[in-house]
């Protein structure tokens, strides 16, 4: 595994770190993290329906790392950081896969009904902001997402 010491950089004073999960990029690990994401979103003050939506958005972001980021590269490291900040939640997802060009991460048109490519749409539909940040040490990817309490779904 890649060295994941200090994988997520420090935050502004207003962000309270609630949870940091380290896991291997495998599909069977996702169910282990979903419950924690939901509980953390509830702790941040989201209602259960919105918390479930946040679970879906974060789960889909993790899937993108597993399927498109690491792909055939087995056992890549993933670090998920969850923070309470400014009346909402901040999610940071760190991986050590080849760099992603954000321009290539686009949802498909929804009137084109066909299997696949819905994950990025779910993420952008549910979260208020979705942004790739410069990864520490220039290695891998750092995806940052936020959701405010009371923001439209």
């Amino acid at each position, binding site marked *: 595994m890649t060295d994941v010491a200090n994988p997520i950089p420090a935050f502004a004073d207003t962000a309270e770190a609630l949870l940091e999960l380290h896991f291997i990029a495998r599909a069977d690990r996702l169910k282990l993290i979903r419950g924690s994401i939901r509980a953390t979103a509830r702790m941040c003050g989201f209602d259960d329906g919105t918390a479930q939506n946040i679970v879906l958005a974060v789960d889909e972001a993790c899937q993108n790392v597993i399927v498109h980021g690491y792909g055939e590269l087995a056992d890549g490291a993933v670090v998920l950081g969850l923070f309470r900040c400014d009346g909402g939640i901040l999610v940071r997802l760190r991986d050590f896969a080849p760099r992603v060009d954000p321009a290539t991460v686009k949802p498909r048109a929804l009137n084109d009904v066909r299997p696949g490519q*819905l*994950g990025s749409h779910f993420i952008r539909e*549910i979260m208020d902001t979705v942004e790739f940040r410069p990864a520490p040490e220039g290695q891998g990817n750092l995806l940052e997402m936020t959701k405010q309490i009371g923001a439209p779904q």
Partner: protein
Amino acid sequence: MTKSGKQKSAPSIVRLSGSVDLEHAPDVRRRLLDAVAQGANVLVDLSAASYIDSSGIACLVEALQKARSEGTDLCLVAISMQARRVLELARLDMVFPIHDDIAAATAAGA
């Protein structure tokens, strides 16, 4: 009666449970396509499905398209609030026929 004039077959029922997600998508896809291949309408009972993600939705869309290309249909039955939200997010809640239970789906001609 079907288009071919044969007696309409009883629908195939596929019961999905637990997480219909990336981990289980290969198995879900196989079960759905096997059901479609039987040549009757397919009812997908999601009453015991606790979670569905884009991978699960992709399996359902593929099976729906396969069914319709072969002159049958695929209906969703007893979907949870979480599944309904996901379908709505994907704008697919108007694409799939959705019924409260198997009896309602059957009564509607599925």
